[in-house]
């Protein structure tokens, strides 16, 4: 009995680990070559000698994150690009109506929150909001789906379809925002004024700490919310998946389904809300940076 429990625990942690590891391609110190991490690609057997994901250094790429984010971006921005290209001034069609609705929603947020003159804020808010929403929506797909298709379809044992749950992606967005905030701060207050504000007036270097942390928090807030949501989906899957292992208890499938569905419905809120929060904070930070105070 005790042994069985240990076995279960190992399986559980394996399962969670499986769902939290990205498909990684990078530089392996041990073999001095570029390649997939250990056990990640069944198509290339004999990679036991390859590095584990944790052994790879900074120069590795999460191919799943990159692929999914660019694919989603291409779909979303391709859609808006095509609709805008075909848009006409007269009575709009349904797709155009949708595109106009989204545009006006974001434009009104920008107009009410940003009082500077920069032309980049609107597009930045638009791009970040829609890209993040498209990422977050991937969280609503069943947790097993990507692994299932990856494993049996392409031989990829590890494939995470949710780019937001990989800190690299939200952090990249936040850093772009930080660079723009710094640029407009320097432009508005001058380099000296900006540095003075950061380190001297009024509370010494505290302002600098807040400056860095608010941008890191911008990334971590988004990452944390979506990562936690994904985690709960995984836990629900484990809880009822394990019970259902024994055939006589297949009925556990049903409460699992209900719980999964209710969490997914609740999660829709988080999906949109986090994207909205990211956009509004971006606008607010840029507004602070480009107005004198």
């Amino acid at each position, binding site marked *: 009995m005790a042994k069985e429990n240990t076995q279960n625990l190992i399986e559980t942690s394996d399962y969670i680990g499986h769902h939290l590891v990205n498909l990684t391609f990078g530089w392996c110190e041990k073999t001095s070559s570029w390649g997939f991490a250990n056990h990640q690609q069944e198509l290339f057997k004999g990679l036991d000698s390859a590095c584990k994901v944790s052994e790879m250094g900074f120069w590795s790429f999460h191919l799943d994150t990159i692929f999914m984010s660019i694919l989603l971006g291409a779909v979303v*921005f391709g859609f808006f690009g095509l609709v*805008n290209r075909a*848009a006409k001034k007269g009575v709009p069609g349904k797709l155009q109506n949708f595109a*106009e609705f989204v545009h*006006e929603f974001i434009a009104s947020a920008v107009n009410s929150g940003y009082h500077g003159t920069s032309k980049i804020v609107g597009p*930045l808010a638009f791009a970040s909001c829609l*890209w993040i929403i498209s990422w977050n929506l991937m969280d609503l797909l069943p947790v097993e789906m990507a692994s299932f298709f990856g494993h049996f379809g392409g031989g990829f044992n590890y494939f995470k379809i949710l780019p937001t749950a990989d*800190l690299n992606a939200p*952090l*990249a967005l936040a850093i772009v925002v930080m660079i723009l905030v710094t640029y407009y701060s320097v432009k508005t207050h001058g380099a000296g004024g900006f540095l003075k504000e950061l380190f001297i007036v009024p509370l010494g270097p505290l302002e600098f700490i807040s400056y860095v942390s608010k941008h890191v928090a911008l990334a971590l807030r988004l990452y944390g919310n979506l990562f936690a949501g994904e985690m709960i989906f995984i836990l629900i899957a484990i809880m009822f998946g394990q019970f259902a292992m024994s055939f006589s208890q297949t009925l556990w499938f049903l409460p699992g389904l209900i719980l999964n569905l209710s969490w997914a419905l609740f999660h829709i809120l988080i999906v949109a809300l986090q994207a909205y929060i990211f956009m509004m904070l971006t606008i607010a930070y840029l507004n602070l940076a480009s107005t004198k105070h």
Partner: protein
Amino acid sequence: MNINATFFAELLAFCIFVFITYRYIWPSMENLLEDRRKEISDGLEAASQSQRKLEEANKESATILDGAKAEASSLINQANSRADQIVDEAKEQAVEEAKKIKLSAEADIEQSANKAKDGLRDEVAALVIAGAQKILDKEINAKANKDIIDSLIKKI
């Protein structure tokens, strides 16, 4: 939670998508919406203008109608008075004509009466002469008595 080179890939991708939005998506939609806003406000302006024009035209047509009505009624009045005048004139003319006819009829009557008197006088004279001739056939000279007879005739 491991930060690695994926970060740079995402950074680059984000910059590219922001640029695409900045270049192709955002301004075209802004222009479109601005154009539509302008078109709608133009349309509303045109509508109110034409409303004004319509009111003006209504007013103008009402005045024209009033003028026409006034003109028509004055024409009718004129026609009525003219007709009265014509009737009066005709009456006068008829009366005059009737007088004239009466006068000429009277003259005719007098003339024919005179004629008839003359005829009768001649006939009576002839009869008198014939009777007197018959009476005085033997002794009275027709020529000697002619003066007497003529003066008789004249007296009749």
